[in-house]
């Protein structure tokens, strides 16, 4: 993290070299690993079915689409922006897939068309944010309503079912010889790709730089707008893809598929240690956050706690993950001030 040294003047805790041994312990990702282990113990103590072979499959099944959508959102949040329209795009994609299939499009063509629509929707977000310079919060709240609204217009209260079995099988069968659902497998592959891109390529470095200091990045020759535009388009495509998976898993296409899922996606990204102000975070953290969420939700489900009530836990984790760093920050500042005085 060479950027830390260069770009964190307001922080008074550059004593990292003095006490490196325990610094690694206070990294958020490390804490997450402990939380994950805690969640595993919690789940195991609550139910004998927790983390059995089929249970692992169901966790992967339940988390797959959410986890996949969290990856492009991680990059967007890294650059200091946000995309709240992810779940609406999933719903729109699911709706269109059903609508096209119902109108006798070949299924592969319908899927390709849905991905293109995803790219268009994402590019629309990107256009409004980069070319018109509008705040991404407002833009994506607007497109959240717009995408979901279009989905509602297309299918209304109807739903489309009876997709080909070879596709809907992804909702009942794991990848052969494993307990992983197909969506979880896809997530793992994508996570590796995203991790490499974010942490080991110039493009990833540029994203971090944009998040830390957008103007400085611009003057350093980074194409800030182009990168953001590409990220939004990418997010649209990936969310449309998640919509396809969602449709096949439930074997049902409805306009309200994935309603309200943006909370889970945003919560996972922030809980994974990605700073809402951009520039800080890692794909590894997000992956662990997915594991924590998946196992916690599964434990709660096994305890017969309703999905609505589970939202309390999701919301609570989201709150904790933004409050804790701030508390830690002010503690550190207090300590640093005391250190200066001495």
């Amino acid at each position, binding site marked *: 993290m060479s950027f830390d040294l260069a770009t964190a003047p307001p922080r008074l805790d550059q004593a990292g070299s003095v006490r490196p041994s325990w610094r690694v312990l206070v990294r958020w990702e490390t804490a997450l690993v402990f939380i994950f282990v805690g969640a595993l113990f919690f789940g195991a103590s609550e139910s004998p079915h927790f983390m059995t072979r089929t249970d692992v499959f169901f966790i992967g099944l339940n988390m797959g689409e959410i986890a996949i959508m969290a990856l492009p959102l991680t990059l967007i949040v890294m650059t200091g922006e946000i995309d709240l329209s992810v779940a609406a795009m999933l719903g729109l994609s699911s709706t269109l897939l059903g609508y096209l299939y119902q109108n006798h499009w070949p299924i592969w063509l319908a899927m390709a068309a849905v991905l293109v629509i995803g790219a268009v929707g994402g590019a629309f977000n990107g256009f409004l944010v980069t070319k018109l310079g*509008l705040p991404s919060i407002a833009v994506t709240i*607007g497109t959240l309503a717009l995408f*979901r*609204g279009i989905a509602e217009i297309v299918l209304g209260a109807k739903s489309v079912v009876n997709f080909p079995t070879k596709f809907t099988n992804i909702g009942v069968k794991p990848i052969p010889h494993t307990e992983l659902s197909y969506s979880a497998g896809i997530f793992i592959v994508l996570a590796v790709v995203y991790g490499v891109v974010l942490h080991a390529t110039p493009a990833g470095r540029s994203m971090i730089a944009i998040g830390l200091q957008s103007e400085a990045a611009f003057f350093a020759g980074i194409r800030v707008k182009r990168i953001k535009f590409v990220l939004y388009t990418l997010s649209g495509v990936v969310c449309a893809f998640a919509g396809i998976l969602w449709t096949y898993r439930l074997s049902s296409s409805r306009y309200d598929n994935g309603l309200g899922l943006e909370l889970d996606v945003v919560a996972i990204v922030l809980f994974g240690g990605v700073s809402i102000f951009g520039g800080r975070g890692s794909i590894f953290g997000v992956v662990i956050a997915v594991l924590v969420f998946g196992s916690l939700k599964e434990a709660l489900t096994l305890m017969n706690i309703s999905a609505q009530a589970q*939202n*309390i836990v999701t919301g609570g984790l989201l*709150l904790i993950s*933004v409050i804790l760093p701030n508390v830690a920050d002010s503690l550190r500042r207090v300590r640093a001030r005391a250190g200066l005085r001495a």
Partner: protein
Amino acid sequence: MTAMSTAPRAAMKIGRAESLLRVRELGIGIAIVIVFGLTTLKNPAFAHALSVQQLLTGASLIALLAVGETLVIITRNVDLSVGSVLGFSAYIVGDVFVHHPHTPPIVGFMVGIVVGAVFGAINGLITTFMRVPSLVVTLATLYIIRGLDAMVVNGKQIDPSSVPKAFQIVGNRTIFGVPWLAIIVAVVVAITGYAMRSFRASRDIYAIGSNPEAAALAGVPIGKRVFTAFLISGSLAGLAGALFLSEVATVDATGGTGYELLVVAAVVVGGVAIFGGSGTVLGAALGALLLNTINQSLGALKLSSFWDQAVAGGLLLAAIAFDRGLGLRIAKRMKSARGEHRVV
């Protein structure tokens, strides 16, 4: 959005048409009249008293929520939890009537306001004390409150028979042809609108939104003011919950779901800058009325009722794009004006 504070000087060089455009309330008023007029041409029943009353009633709750939301957004924050607060408060008020059937209606409304105030205070405390972005805080409380609601409701619902008739009057009757709901909202808009123009504390709110650092240096108690904005937003959402119950007389765990989108859309369409510092509660309330007028006119034109969300989203995007364009034009003009002799 510093356009407002510098407007008087720039206004001298700006054409009359454009300065009228910048009085957003007027623009929205005209838009409402146009939509209303065109729809009436196609379907004369749209102008019947009953239909107009529906326009007002349908917009009332969103307008009420939009008033509180306006205060919050002017401080550069956002409150996404209003829909959940409305639903929770509606159920609690109903629950009070179930257990104490002889509760006077006014107490019902007080209960609603108190419930809302508690949640508003929680949002405000976390945002100001913990210095956490309100977007994240209220996104979280949106779901937490909805989850609490689901636990409290536990699959039950409030039946119309348990809501006193006297309480239902407020949500359903009219006085001289004007719905009670609309009158209540108009009173709230008038009081808040006056306060936002005239009180020092409310001018502080604008100052915070325009430039937080400058406001802090000028001695504005930022935390206190932002907290108050959230408190008012929560209280109004609580009141809206009680009014919701008095209008429909039944509520389950889903009351008010998704309202936050309509509210934010109404506020932004009403000319409140999403980055704070400018806007009026009257504009926001008119924004809510415009959204509802468009929705009802789609119904009157026999278009599907599924258009609500898409229209709200589209209008929201159009409004922020429009504001941005206007802001850029003003900034450009002021830049070029600075080069010439200043004639002030």
